[in-house]
Protein backbone atom coordinates (compact mmCIF):
# COMPACT_ATOMS: atom_id res chain seq x y z
CA UNK A 1 0.00 0.00 0.00
CA UNK A 2 1.03 3.58 -0.56
CA UNK A 3 2.26 5.71 2.32
CA UNK A 4 3.54 9.24 2.58
CA UNK A 5 6.07 10.34 5.16
CA UNK A 6 6.69 13.92 6.16
CA UNK A 7 9.13 15.22 8.76
CA UNK A 8 9.74 16.79 11.13
CA UNK A 9 6.31 17.08 12.75
CA UNK A 10 7.20 20.28 14.59
CA UNK A 11 9.91 22.83 13.99
CA UNK A 12 10.83 26.12 15.66
CA UNK A 13 13.35 28.19 13.73
CA UNK A 14 14.76 31.70 14.19
CA UNK A 15 14.23 34.39 11.58
CA UNK A 16 16.95 34.28 8.94
CA UNK A 17 17.77 30.61 9.42
CA UNK A 18 17.52 28.04 6.58
CA UNK A 19 14.74 25.49 6.20
CA UNK A 20 14.51 22.00 4.78
CA UNK A 21 11.34 19.91 4.98
CA UNK A 22 11.31 16.48 3.42
CA UNK A 23 8.54 14.32 2.08
CA UNK A 24 8.78 10.80 0.69
CA UNK A 25 6.20 8.51 -0.84
CA UNK A 26 6.31 4.72 -0.77
CA UNK A 27 4.45 2.11 -2.76
CA UNK A 28 3.93 4.02 -6.00
CA UNK A 29 5.94 5.27 -8.94
CA UNK A 30 5.98 8.59 -10.78
CA UNK A 31 3.49 10.34 -8.49
CA UNK A 32 2.48 13.97 -8.74
CA UNK A 33 3.80 15.71 -5.63
CA UNK A 34 2.57 18.86 -3.93
CA UNK A 35 3.48 21.25 -1.11
CA UNK A 36 0.65 23.15 0.58
CA UNK A 37 0.66 25.68 3.40
CA UNK A 38 -2.24 26.05 5.77
CA UNK A 39 -2.40 29.24 7.80
CA UNK A 40 -4.71 29.75 10.77
CA UNK A 41 -8.23 29.80 9.38
CA UNK A 42 -7.91 26.44 7.65
CA UNK A 43 -7.45 27.40 3.97
CA UNK A 44 -4.90 25.33 2.02
CA UNK A 45 -2.65 27.28 -0.31
CA UNK A 46 -0.80 25.39 -3.03
CA UNK A 47 2.88 26.37 -3.01
CA UNK A 48 4.57 23.97 -5.45
CA UNK A 49 3.77 20.92 -7.49
CA UNK A 50 5.87 18.46 -9.45
CA UNK A 51 5.00 15.96 -12.17
CA UNK A 52 8.47 14.42 -12.36
CA UNK A 53 12.10 14.52 -11.22
CA UNK A 54 13.50 18.02 -11.50
CA UNK A 55 10.17 19.45 -12.68
CA UNK A 56 8.85 22.06 -10.28
CA UNK A 57 6.00 24.53 -10.77
CA UNK A 58 5.57 27.43 -8.37
CA UNK A 59 2.12 28.74 -7.63
CA UNK A 60 2.92 31.65 -5.35
CA UNK A 61 6.05 33.89 -5.45
CA UNK A 62 7.63 33.73 -2.03
CA UNK A 63 10.65 33.04 0.12
CA UNK A 64 10.48 29.28 -0.48
CA UNK A 65 11.71 26.85 -3.10
CA UNK A 66 11.11 23.18 -3.84
CA UNK A 67 13.14 20.38 -5.35
CA UNK A 68 12.50 16.81 -6.45
CA UNK A 69 15.83 15.02 -6.54
CA UNK A 70 14.28 11.54 -6.73
CA UNK A 71 11.00 10.18 -8.06
CA UNK A 72 9.38 9.86 -4.65
CA UNK A 73 11.15 12.62 -2.73
CA UNK A 74 10.00 16.20 -2.48
CA UNK A 75 11.86 18.87 -0.50
CA UNK A 76 10.74 22.32 0.58
CA UNK A 77 13.52 24.80 1.34
CA UNK A 78 14.30 28.33 2.28
CA UNK A 79 17.63 30.12 2.56
CA UNK A 80 16.40 32.67 5.10
CA UNK A 81 13.12 32.26 6.96
CA UNK A 82 10.73 35.13 7.56
CA UNK A 83 8.17 35.44 10.34
CA UNK A 84 5.47 35.15 7.68
CA UNK A 85 6.72 31.67 6.76
CA UNK A 86 5.16 30.27 9.94
CA UNK A 87 2.36 27.83 9.27
CA UNK A 88 1.33 24.23 8.81
CA UNK A 89 3.05 22.66 5.79
CA UNK A 90 1.50 19.68 4.09
CA UNK A 91 2.95 17.39 1.46
CA UNK A 92 0.60 15.43 -0.79
CA UNK A 93 0.74 13.02 -3.71
CA UNK A 94 -1.63 11.92 -6.43
CA UNK A 95 -1.70 9.34 -9.20
CA UNK A 96 -0.83 10.80 -12.57
CA UNK A 97 -3.53 10.82 -15.19
CA UNK A 98 -6.59 10.29 -12.98
CA UNK A 99 -8.60 12.27 -10.43
CA UNK A 100 -10.30 9.20 -9.03
CA UNK A 101 -8.25 8.99 -5.85
CA UNK A 102 -7.78 12.70 -5.16
CA UNK A 103 -4.73 13.69 -3.20
CA UNK A 104 -3.25 11.82 -0.23
CA UNK A 105 -1.76 14.10 2.40
CA UNK A 106 1.05 13.63 4.86
CA UNK A 107 0.69 14.38 8.54
CA UNK A 108 2.14 17.88 8.21
CA UNK A 109 4.91 19.99 9.72
CA UNK A 110 4.06 22.80 12.13
CA UNK A 111 6.68 25.51 11.49
CA UNK A 112 7.05 28.41 13.89
CA UNK A 113 9.50 31.15 12.97
CA UNK A 114 10.58 33.19 15.99
Amino acid sequence: SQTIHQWPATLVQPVGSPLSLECTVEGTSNPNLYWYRQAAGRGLQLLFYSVGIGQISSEVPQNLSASRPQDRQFILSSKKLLLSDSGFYLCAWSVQGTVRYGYTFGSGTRLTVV
Partner: protein
Amino acid sequence: EDQVTQSPEALRLQEGESSSLNCSYTVSGLRGLFWYRQDPGKGPEFLFTLYSAGEEKEKERLKATLTKKESFLHITAPKPEDSATYLCAVQRGKLIFGQGTELSVKP
Protein backbone atom coordinates in the same frame (compact mmCIF):
# COMPACT_ATOMS: atom_id res chain seq x y z
CA GLU B 1 -11.77 32.73 -11.68
CA ASP B 2 -12.14 29.29 -10.08
CA GLN B 3 -13.61 29.57 -6.61
CA VAL B 4 -14.81 27.30 -3.80
CA THR B 5 -16.91 28.64 -0.92
CA GLN B 6 -17.93 26.60 2.10
CA SER B 7 -20.65 27.43 4.58
CA PRO B 8 -21.11 27.73 7.42
CA GLU B 9 -17.60 28.48 8.70
CA ALA B 10 -18.44 26.76 11.98
CA LEU B 11 -21.29 24.51 13.04
CA ARG B 12 -22.16 23.31 16.51
CA LEU B 13 -24.52 20.35 16.85
CA GLN B 14 -25.85 18.24 19.64
CA GLU B 15 -25.21 14.53 19.35
CA GLY B 16 -27.91 13.06 17.11
CA GLU B 17 -28.83 16.40 15.51
CA SER B 18 -28.56 15.93 11.74
CA SER B 19 -27.41 18.77 9.49
CA SER B 20 -25.71 19.62 6.19
CA LEU B 21 -22.55 21.42 5.13
CA ASN B 22 -22.48 23.34 1.86
CA CYS B 23 -19.77 23.72 -0.77
CA SER B 24 -20.48 26.11 -3.64
CA TYR B 25 -18.11 26.18 -6.57
CA THR B 26 -17.41 28.13 -9.70
CA VAL B 27 -15.10 26.27 -12.03
CA SER B 28 -15.14 25.42 -15.69
CA GLY B 29 -14.29 21.91 -16.74
CA LEU B 30 -14.78 20.28 -13.35
CA ARG B 31 -12.97 16.95 -13.19
CA GLY B 32 -14.01 16.02 -9.68
CA LEU B 33 -15.19 17.35 -6.32
CA PHE B 34 -13.59 16.03 -3.16
CA TRP B 35 -14.51 16.02 0.50
CA TYR B 36 -11.84 15.71 3.18
CA ARG B 37 -11.91 15.50 6.94
CA GLN B 38 -9.14 17.19 8.93
CA ASP B 39 -8.50 16.68 12.63
CA PRO B 40 -6.51 19.33 14.54
CA GLY B 41 -2.78 19.10 13.82
CA LYS B 42 -3.25 16.38 11.18
CA GLY B 43 -3.28 16.26 7.40
CA PRO B 44 -6.63 16.08 5.56
CA GLU B 45 -8.11 12.61 5.21
CA PHE B 46 -9.90 11.70 1.99
CA LEU B 47 -13.65 10.98 2.29
CA PHE B 48 -15.33 11.13 -1.13
CA THR B 49 -14.92 11.94 -4.81
CA LEU B 50 -17.94 13.05 -6.84
CA TYR B 51 -17.74 13.40 -10.61
CA SER B 52 -21.10 14.45 -12.00
CA ALA B 53 -24.34 16.16 -11.00
CA GLY B 54 -26.76 13.79 -9.32
CA GLU B 55 -24.06 11.55 -7.92
CA GLU B 56 -24.18 10.51 -4.26
CA LYS B 57 -21.65 8.76 -2.01
CA GLU B 58 -22.11 7.45 1.53
CA LYS B 59 -19.80 6.46 4.35
CA GLU B 60 -21.21 5.66 7.78
CA ARG B 61 -23.08 8.78 8.94
CA LEU B 62 -21.87 10.92 6.02
CA LYS B 63 -23.52 11.35 2.64
CA ALA B 64 -22.18 13.62 -0.10
CA THR B 65 -24.24 14.89 -3.00
CA LEU B 66 -23.38 16.97 -6.05
CA THR B 67 -25.25 19.41 -8.28
CA LYS B 68 -23.92 21.58 -11.09
CA LYS B 69 -23.13 24.42 -8.70
CA GLU B 70 -22.74 22.95 -5.23
CA SER B 71 -22.17 19.91 -3.07
CA PHE B 72 -23.66 19.01 0.27
CA LEU B 73 -22.21 16.86 3.01
CA HIS B 74 -25.09 15.51 5.04
CA ILE B 75 -24.35 14.27 8.55
CA THR B 76 -27.00 11.98 10.00
CA ALA B 77 -27.23 11.53 13.78
CA PRO B 78 -23.68 12.81 14.38
CA LYS B 79 -21.50 11.64 17.24
CA PRO B 80 -18.78 13.58 19.10
CA GLU B 81 -16.13 11.70 17.12
CA ASP B 82 -17.43 13.37 13.96
CA SER B 83 -16.05 16.68 15.27
CA ALA B 84 -13.45 17.93 12.77
CA THR B 85 -12.96 20.43 9.99
CA TYR B 86 -14.50 19.30 6.70
CA LEU B 87 -12.83 20.55 3.55
CA CYS B 88 -14.24 20.65 0.05
CA ALA B 89 -12.02 20.84 -3.02
CA VAL B 90 -12.58 20.93 -6.77
CA GLN B 91 -10.17 19.72 -9.41
CA ARG B 92 -9.76 21.20 -12.82
CA GLY B 93 -6.00 20.98 -13.16
CA LYS B 94 -4.97 21.09 -9.53
CA LEU B 95 -7.05 20.93 -6.36
CA ILE B 96 -8.64 24.20 -5.24
CA PHE B 97 -9.77 24.09 -1.61
CA GLY B 98 -12.50 25.90 0.23
CA GLN B 99 -11.84 27.37 3.67
CA GLY B 100 -13.56 24.50 5.45
CA THR B 101 -16.37 24.07 7.96
CA GLU B 102 -15.39 23.42 11.56
CA LEU B 103 -17.90 20.96 12.99
CA SER B 104 -18.31 20.47 16.74
CA VAL B 105 -20.65 17.77 18.05
CA LYS B 106 -21.45 17.93 21.75
CA PRO B 107 -22.67 14.90 23.73
